[in-house]
């Protein structure tokens, strides 16, 4: 609009006050008076190589055609290349960098568990009945009289109480339909967890039914040991959920009894270095150098001396006999802000052995965003993080499972954290949760719950590769004084000899650590460079040339608009002057066209070849910037008549 105004001003019909063509008074934006003018200007000043030949060699059709073909070829080549380059860029390729860094390392968190959830003496009352049933079952199935180990209860009192749900049964391989079985259960009757390894044609398992007993299946095991342990565990979970409120007492006492000595980097550990939590299976767990450690341990040198060294008690005096079948301790190395999944990444320590675990750190950094499917902090993953820790894939999967468990079964699995407004499963309240749980477990492992697709990889992962060496500890010559000392200082029972103690060293093997990081292999700068190379190669033009093209198009539009406006005006305001003006225009071009203006177009333009330029307008061109007053009048009058013929 502004331009138009100035145009109007420039073309002002008042001949008495012609605009001075000084540079100071140059209009804000000026337009060419005609298409021809515009194209001449463009041809003279454009920087696109092919375009000059194509647009500006109008006098020779052969040449024009030739240049058009060439231009199209170059154009096609360039856009083909552009396509390739953009395709490469938008596939977001990454290149892997492996950096070997060596600097001071933050010692990871180390979690150690006792492998015994409760002291048998403390929990005996709750477990009494379960143990009795188990004992009975063992006798029924295997004719094993376990009274020697467990036997505090005389057998035969079973009939006094109501039978427990889900009794352990012996099943024949082609599973017979015992008792009430649903119609649908025939297909999925026996779920075989393990391939049958024993020669015998029967298995052991227990039955799980849904709420209204319409569908049942047998959870079976080929080995009786597995079956009894799983069955016991199943009942233990139920008892535990009732027991949950009464937390195990005297943890401090437990720690003192569990860890005899602790040193890091040749200095004693203290209270601030560890935190405690209780795991229903692995017992009391102590996390050293966890996230609430006041100042994190750093390793400035590799080697045993500069690592964590612990002396542990592994006595089994008060283990729960049917639950804890492993002796020793369980250790896990993990990052400070990650939860310790003792199930997934633990390492068992043997009693009587000094275990030296050497670590090597490895870090992996993925590029997030378009470059890969990973999440920076898990905020965009549609699973609520039940652990109040950093996002890891394991955290997410566990949370996801717990989530589905609550949705499907109405109660929470005890080994995972309790979400709000939920309670742990107990078959007294949720009588079919076992059925539900095993079904869900099956769906989970075959990824029908979608947990594995929902949970994305975290973008940065730090892992510790562990390798262990073992030596007997204490040695024959030194065991006397060591045991004596431990017994005096830590109430160690000497009779246990080597089975009651274990030693653990965790240290960095080397301070070099490998960082695998991704970086975009095509960056914006290289992409633009490649585009520029292609563009220069095929066209010799640049982004500014494109702006020139844009300007040309803009000018064309504006000029068209102005001409239409003028035509409209001339038709309604001064229709009588049209014929004269047209004659004038016809007479002017040859004389007033500056011959040097466009060296290529010396011959008068052929109206047939360029219909857009059919009205020869060059009168304005000459008038352009410095028209004399008289010329201006003529020009303006002729301009009105442009559209007339």
């Amino acid at each position: 609009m502004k331009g138009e105004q100035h145009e109007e001003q420039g073309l002002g019909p008042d001949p008495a006050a012609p605009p001075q063509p000084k540079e100071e008074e140059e209009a804000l934006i000026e337009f060419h008076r005609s298409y021809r003018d515009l194209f001449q200007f463009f041809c003279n000043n454009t920087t696109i190589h092919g375009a000059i030949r194509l647009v500006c060699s109008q006098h020779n059709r052969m040449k024009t055609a030739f240049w058009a073909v060439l231009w199209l070829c170059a154009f096609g080549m360039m856009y083909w290349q552009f396509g390739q380059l953009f395709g490469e860029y938008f596939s977001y390729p990454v290149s892997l960098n492996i950096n070997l860094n060596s600097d001071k390392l933050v010692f990871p968190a180390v979690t150690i568990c006792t492998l015994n959830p409760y002291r048998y003496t403390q929990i005996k009352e709750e477990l009494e009945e379960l143990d009795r049933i188990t004992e009975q079952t063992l006798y029924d199935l295997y004719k094993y009289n376990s009274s020697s180990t467990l036997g505090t209860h005389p057998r035969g009192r079973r009939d006094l109480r109501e039978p427990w749900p889900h009794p352990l049964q012996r099943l024949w391989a082609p599973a017979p339909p015992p008792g009430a079985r649903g119609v649908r259960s025939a297909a999925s009757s026996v779920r075989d967890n393990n391939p049958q390894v024993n020669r015998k044609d029967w298995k052991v398992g227990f039955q799980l039914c849904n709420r209204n007993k319409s569908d049942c299946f047998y959870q079976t095991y080929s080995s009786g040991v597995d079956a009894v342990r799983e069955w016991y565990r199943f009942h233990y979970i139920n008892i535990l959920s009732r027991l949950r409120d009464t937390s195990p007492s005297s943890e401090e006492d437990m720690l003192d009894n569990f860890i005899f000595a602790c040193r890091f980097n040749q200095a004693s550990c203290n209270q601030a270095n560890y935190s405690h939590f209780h795991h229903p299976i692995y017992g009391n767990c102590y996390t050293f150098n966890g996230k609430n450690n006041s100042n994190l341990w750093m390793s400035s040198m590799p080697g045993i001396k500069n690592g964590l060294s612990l002396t542990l008690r592994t006595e089994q005096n008060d283990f729960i006999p049917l639950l804890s079948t492993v002796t020793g301790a369980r250790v896990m190395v993990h990052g400070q802000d990650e939860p310790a999944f003792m199930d997934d990444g633990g390492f068992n320590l043997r009693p009587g052995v000094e275990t030296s675990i050497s670590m090597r750190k490895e870090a992996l950094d993925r590029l997030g965003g378009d470059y890969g499917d990973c999440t920076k902090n898990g905020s965009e993953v549609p699973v609520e993080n039940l652990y109040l820790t950093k996002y890891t894939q394991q955290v997410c999967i566990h949370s996801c499972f717990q989530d589905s468990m609550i949705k499907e079964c109405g109660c929470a699995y005890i080994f995972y954290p309790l979400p709000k407004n939920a309670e742990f499963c107990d078959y007294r309240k949720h009588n079919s949760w076992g059925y539900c749980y095993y079904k869900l477990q099956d769906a989970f492992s075959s990824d029908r719950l979608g947990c594995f697709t929902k949970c994305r990889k975290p973008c940065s992962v730090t892992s510790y590769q562990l390798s262990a060496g073992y030596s007997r500890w204490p040695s024959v010559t030194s065991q006397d004084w060591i045991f004596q000392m431990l017994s005096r200082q830590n109430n160690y029972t000497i009779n246990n000899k080597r089975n009651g103690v274990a030693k653990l060293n965790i240290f960095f093997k080397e301070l070099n650590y490998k960082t695998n990081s991704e970086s975009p292999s095509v960056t914006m700068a290289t992409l633009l460079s490649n585009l520029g190379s292609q563009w220069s190669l095929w066209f010799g033009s640049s982004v500014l040339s494109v702006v020139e093209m844009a300007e040309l198009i803009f000018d064309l539009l504006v000029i068209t608009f102005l001409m239409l406006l003028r035509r409209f005006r001339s038709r309604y305001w001064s229709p009588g002057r049209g014929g004269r003006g047209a004659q004038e225009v016809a007479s002017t071009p040859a004389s007033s066209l500056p011959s040097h203006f466009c060296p290529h177009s010396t011959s008068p333009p052929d109206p047939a070849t360029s219909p857009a330029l059919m009205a020869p307008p060059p009168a304005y061109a000459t008038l352009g910037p410095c028209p004399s007053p008289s010329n201006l009048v003529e020009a303006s009058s002729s301009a009105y008549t442009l559209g007339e013929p």
Partner: protein
Amino acid sequence: MGTTSHILLHIKLAWPSSPILIMAPGEKIKAKIKKNLPVTGPQAPTIKELMRWYCLNTNTHGCRRIVVSRGRLRRLLWVLFTLTAVALIFWHCALLISSFYTVSVSIKVHFQKLDFPAVTICNINPYKYSAVRDLLADLEQETRTALKNLYGFPENKSRKRREAESWTSAWEGTRPKFLKLVPLLAFSQDETSKARDFLTGRKRKVSGSIIHKASDVMHVHESKEVVGFQLCSNDTSKCAVYTFSSGVNAIQEWYKLHYMNIMAQVPLEKKINMSYSAEELLVTCFFDGMSCNARNFTLFHHPMYGNCYTFNNRENETILSTSMGGSEYGLQVILYINEEEYNPFLVSSTGAKVIVHRQDEYPFIEDIGTEIETAMATSIGMHLTESFKLSEPYSQCTEDGSDVPISNIYNAAYSLQICLHSCFQTKMVEKCGCAQYSQPLPPAANYCNYQQHPNWMYCYYQLHQAFVREELGCQSVCREACSFKEWTLTTSLAQWPSEVSEKWLLPILTWDQGQQIKKKLNKTDLAKLLIFYKDLNQRSIMESPANSIEMLLSNFGGQLGLWMSCSVVCVIEIIEVFFIDSFSIIARRQWHKAKEWWARRHAPPGPQGQDNLGLDIDDDLPTFTSALRLPPAPGTEVPGTPPPRYNTLRLERAFSDQLTDTQMPAES
């Protein structure tokens, strides 16, 4: 003609401001040419003219439009476009340069016959206790006394110990020098300034900073005493008290302190003799399916582990290699770990240590050795990874350590760990005057012992604390090595020998070792070790420069081309116009100003001076060539006819050629 009319118009316009009209006709022509021919190039009279000329003639896109476009807004937009393009070029080129020193990593997996690494095996116990007992008798005696006082338990009842007791009873009367030197103290938990001396039982006051104050979780009894020892500097004004959460650790550390003291005074020859011989340690040896013996092992004496034996060291100039992967083709040895000869206080675990390393590398047994358990077969599978890094300027690594300002006190190839240890040892010699026992001796230094350096222990502990806190600067000085080989080890264990094979295996081994040992072998005296390549794949991680100079240049070319269609020639042109020509114009201006100033100063004041001034102003626009030729003597004032007349004539011809190319006059 149109051109003439334009010229006239301009002259009219210029009338009021310039004194052209009263000039000579020659001047007039010159002025005409100057005004109408923009194609002046380096001869342009003003910077603006030069810029205009440049914009019209350059191949760089954008510039021409600034001049050619009509309309102020249009011009402004074009200036903006051009400047944006220039800025983008600079920005992207800066990005390209900043990412020039990146590396790309290639991982190659070779399948080839692999050189077997050097394998160093040590017994955890350094010296046969029977051999070193003479030296350590006093110390043992005192340790037992301390134990007795500390924990009150009686000497054990085993036959061996009884012997020892009777043997050491002869020393009853002697003065307990070790406890006196560094007394073991029991601290009560609540008052740490009071301590009970074990030797005398007297309470004594402890002053000084307590280093590891045992505000511990670890003590069981409520009123438990914490055990530790006190290290003082020379004047005993500054003391550090070390306490330990467990008495076991306290005793061991205390013992080790004195042990190192004693052993530091024993010559190396004697120490080697006191330790295990190769024949003793290595019962059987198999390599690559062939039998080998103790002669294939070379001795390496480690201060804390005694005699260690290195297999496949480059002793006889050939490095053994394995032709196959798998445990059958690796090294199989059975080690004799004589548990009876263990030092009860120095080492508390039984077994051997093994380390896999490069032939020219120092084996850091104490830091990264893998333990081997007795009565077990330990299989160690290896996987070789080689890493090559690019040194400066890509990373900070060093090729051979020659550019690290730490002298390598180890007789081995450079590694980061060697550098750190060397640095610490050097600092130790500097600060404490003696060298720490567990590391090699720097030239012209002695190992620390109490007789000569009474306060070395305090000094050492202080220094070690400083080292851990990185106050010694070792960590910043030492750089990693650029290339290293590492063997990833996978350990697995099996019970060995089995119950049934034990019966025949042990007698045979006993018979084999008949000359060396005089007793029947027990299965806990033996350990089996297998070290082998899991596969013959060798992984090499190699860094190579991700960018070459050609790539950088082509990327530069791409950027220049993309935004402005510029090239190196354009850049040269820009440099020429913007720097050389502009400066020459400015210089010329300045020169004329100076000349004018000179002229005014020397010319007599008057109306004529005004005239001359006007002429001079006009005269300051001669062409460049004339300007160059213009060193007129300051005094020679030429007010009349200036010389440039001829020059203008010459130039005119030159311009008329260019006129057709650059159709500028139509615009102005």
